[in-house]
Structures are given as structure tokens and as C-alpha cells.
């Protein structure tokens, strides 16, 4: 992401199921199938011309070729405010040079 110049993102460690084979674990006489796997979920807000490079970066780095690699959803955003400056929309998601 950072190599693709995407500098604003939020990462969540989540559990999910994406059709992958379930893990089997054994604890003494108890055998369990783990239906949920550890996943990461990224929330990224970008301006329009950054959408394509961002998605490409995710597709390239998250790809293993097996079931359960994950999905990318691209959604429209109604309104954005940057809390620090009060900037709106395009200006609010444009990175600023660090002082």
C-alpha cells in the first residue's frame, strides 16, 4: 500500500469465512473444525483517480491463488471531512506533505 502511495488506511484484524477448507484442530479427545479464519479488513478512502492503483496493489499483494484470498469492494462515498482542518471531499483525502 505504501509503495503504491496509498497513505491513509485503517486495518482491522477480523475473523471470517471465505469458502476455504476448514482447519481441523485436536485438543486431547476433542476434535474441532474451525469455521472462521483470521483475516484482515482494510478501510481505505481515496480520491477517484487513486481507486484503480489502490485496487491493483491489493490484488497483487493479497493474491495466493487459493480459495479464501478475499474480496475488494469499491463503494461510493457521500461526503468526507478531515477532522484536523475541516477540509471536505477531495481535499480531505489528499495527502499533505509532512512539515
Amino acid at each position, binding site marked *: 500500500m505504501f509503495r503504491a502511495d496509498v497513505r491513509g488506511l485503517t486495518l482491522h484484524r477480523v475473523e471470517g469465512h471465505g469458502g476455504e477448507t476448514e482447519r481441523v*484442530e*485436536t*485438543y*486431547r*479427545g*476433542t476434535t*474441532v473444525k474451525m469455521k472462521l479464519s483470521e483475516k484482515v479488513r482494510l478501510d481505505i478512502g481515496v480520491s477517484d483517480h487513486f481507486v484503480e492503483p489502490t485496487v491493483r496493489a491489493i490484488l497483487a499483494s493479497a493474491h495466493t491463488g487459493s480459495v479464501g484470498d478475499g474480496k475488494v469492494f469499491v463503494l461510493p462515498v457521500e461526503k468526507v471531512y478531515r477532522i484536523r482542518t475541516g477540509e471536505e471531499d477531495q481535499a480531505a483525502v489528499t495527502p499533505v506533505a509532512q512539515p
Partner: protein
Amino acid sequence: MDRADTAWLLVATALVLLMTPALGFFYGGLVRSKNALNTMMMSVSALGFVGVAWALAGYALAFAPGGAFAGDLGRALLSGVGLEPQGSVPHLLFMAFQGTFAIITAALISGAIVERMRFGPYLAFLVLWSLAVYAPVAHWVWGGGFLAKLGALDFAGGTVVHINAGAAALVAAVVLGPRKDFARQAMLPHNVPFTLLGAGLLWFGWFGFNGGSALASNASAALAFVNTMFAPMATLVVWTLLDLRRTGRATAVGAATAIVVGLVAITPAAGYVSPLSAILLGGVAAFPSYFALLWRARTRLDDSLDVVAAHGLGGTVGALLTGVLAQKAWNGTADGLLFGNPRQLLVQALSVLAVAAYSGLATFGLLKLVGAVAPLRVGAREEGLGLDVTQHGEEAYTRGEGAILVLHPDESVEGLGLPETAPAEGGSG
């Protein structure tokens, strides 16, 4: 009085005491996180409650001269237990060393009844059990009681500690009944590293348990010490191979269990068998416990942490094999079946049966007695919330989010697990 013996027994006493918090880690890692503190407290509290009961009356019932069944109360309140020699060590130290055994034996039972027993009745049961079951059984075998007179061999407590606790655990699991989620939901160990840590510390402490049971700093202690090292190693090897054969994977919970099973099995034999016999004994002991664990999980018996399979069965295998593998050339006391003394095996079998029967019956009576005064089990809602919050008012892994400081807790409504209804006073000061 021997200064070397005294020094070794001082160290051994501390080592055995460490085994009880270690057991807390072993058990604590195997339960769900909402019951972690309750499970560990079941061991930790034994240090206090059983320890004090031991000093006040337990030691007298176990080791005062008395009848075939129990000691008399001549040594109650530690009267006559001072600095004079008992064997080659101060009497007081002998009493303390034996006290650490009483503590861990009582704590072992808790593994069968975790995640569902109310804490108050548990403490009451623990104290009563240590006095009415542990102390007399210790007297039978070590205090000059009838099994000692028969010539039963129990170096460090295969029958007194492990079969005793195993039989009590079986009965306790039946009387308490299974957890509400048992065989309905997957209940996984919440911290396997804790369990491995506990197993490691148990092994370390067990050198004092078995090595110290020679009650001297001598060749017998060295034999017991070395056997305590090699028997669990053999169990670990066999257990790992069984795991690999069954699932293709060597499990960590299995390794921790194997160590404990090996330690349990060598306990009665530690100072009586050759090191090579110890390796054989440790390896053989893996089989019954391994398959009992698998079988138990498919039954309705919720011996939650498999005390019966690990301690009851491991102790039985150890006690019987002591009767087979004991070697006068190594212990100077008695031979087993393999060395021309088949009677020893019979005596061992008799002591196993006597201890298991008495422990089981007495445990049933004590639980019914405590249960008649107060309910033994928590309610279904409390069981769902977890015993840490409902029994102790604490959480093992609290995140502290949303916690508001109560400045005058005494004035607030008491009620475990209930929402706070008193007005928050945080802003007034």
C-alpha cells in the same frame, strides 16, 4: 539430626509447594478464558485452606501414632511437633513437607469440576476432604496404618496422592454433573502455553516431591530423582508417537499431559525401581491414559480436565508396575513380581482398591454433606457468564474499556454481574 538431610528437605518442601500454583497454570490454560481465574484459584486457595487445616488437625490424623485407620489427635494444633528430630530431620520440617502433599492432592480434584462449582462450597469441600480423606489415607500408607503393615510400596504418593485424587475426581464429576455446554459446544483450552508452563513447573517441583520422599539426602533420593527425570521423558516419547499415529500431528496439550502422566506413574515407584525400569514404566504408562482420554471425551462423564485418566489411571499403572518392577538390589526393601516376589503385586492391587474405594465413597458423602448446606453448582446464567466474574468479581483479561471508577464502593449496590444501579459519583469530587 543430619544437616545434609535437613538442607535437602528444606529445598524439597519449597519445590513441592511450587507444584500447586504450577497446577493452577496447567489447569488454568485448559479452560475457557471466562473461567481462567476461577480455575487457577481452585489450586491457589488450597495453599491457604488445606495448608492451615493440615497444621491444625490434618498432620495429627495422618502421622500421629494411632490406629490402623487414622492417627489420634495427640498432635493436633501441632502440639509436640517441634525442633526435635523426626528421622534425621526436624519434626517441624517433616510436618511442613508432608503438608505440601496434602495441598496439591486436594487441588488435583478441582480439574474434574472446573467451570461450574460455586467457590464457597468448593472451599468447604476442600478442607473437609483433606481432613477426612487425605489424612487417613496418608496414615494407612505412610503413618503406620494397615497398608503400611501389609508392606504396600508407595514411594511418594501414587496411591496416597494420585489414585486418591483420581477417585475423588471421578465421584465429584458425577455428583456435580456435566457443564451445560458439555458435548454441545466446542470448549477449547484458552491458553495452551500456560498449560505447558504448568507442566514444566510441575516437573521441576516433582523432583522435590519424589526426591524429597527419601526424607534424606542419600542414594535413595538420587535414584528417585533420576527416575523422576527419565520416566516422563519416556512417556513423552510414546505419547508423541501415539499422537502422530492418530492425527499425524504431535500436540502441545498432549505433550503437557504426557509429562504429567509420566510423573504420576513414576511417583509410587521412584525409589524402588532401576532407571531402566523407570523408562519402561513411563513408556507403558502412556497407553492406558492416552486411550482413556479419547474414550472419556465421547462419554457423558465431564471429568473436564481428565483427572481420572491422568492421575487415577496413571497412578494405578504406577502402583501396579511398582509391584512388578521393584528391585531389592536398588531399594534394599522389597522385590516385585519380575524379581520373584508375586505377593508384592497383590499387595499393590489391594492398596489401589482400598484407597480408590474409600476415597470414592467418602468424597460422595462429603459432597452430599456440603450440598445439603449450600448448592454446589452455579446457576445456568452464571455458568454462561463465566465464573471469574460471578464468583470472584474479576476478569483474567479485562480490557478496562467502559470502566468507570466507583469512589464509594461500599455504598453501591452489591450484586455480582448485575448492572451498577447506584448513581455515579465520579464527577462530584
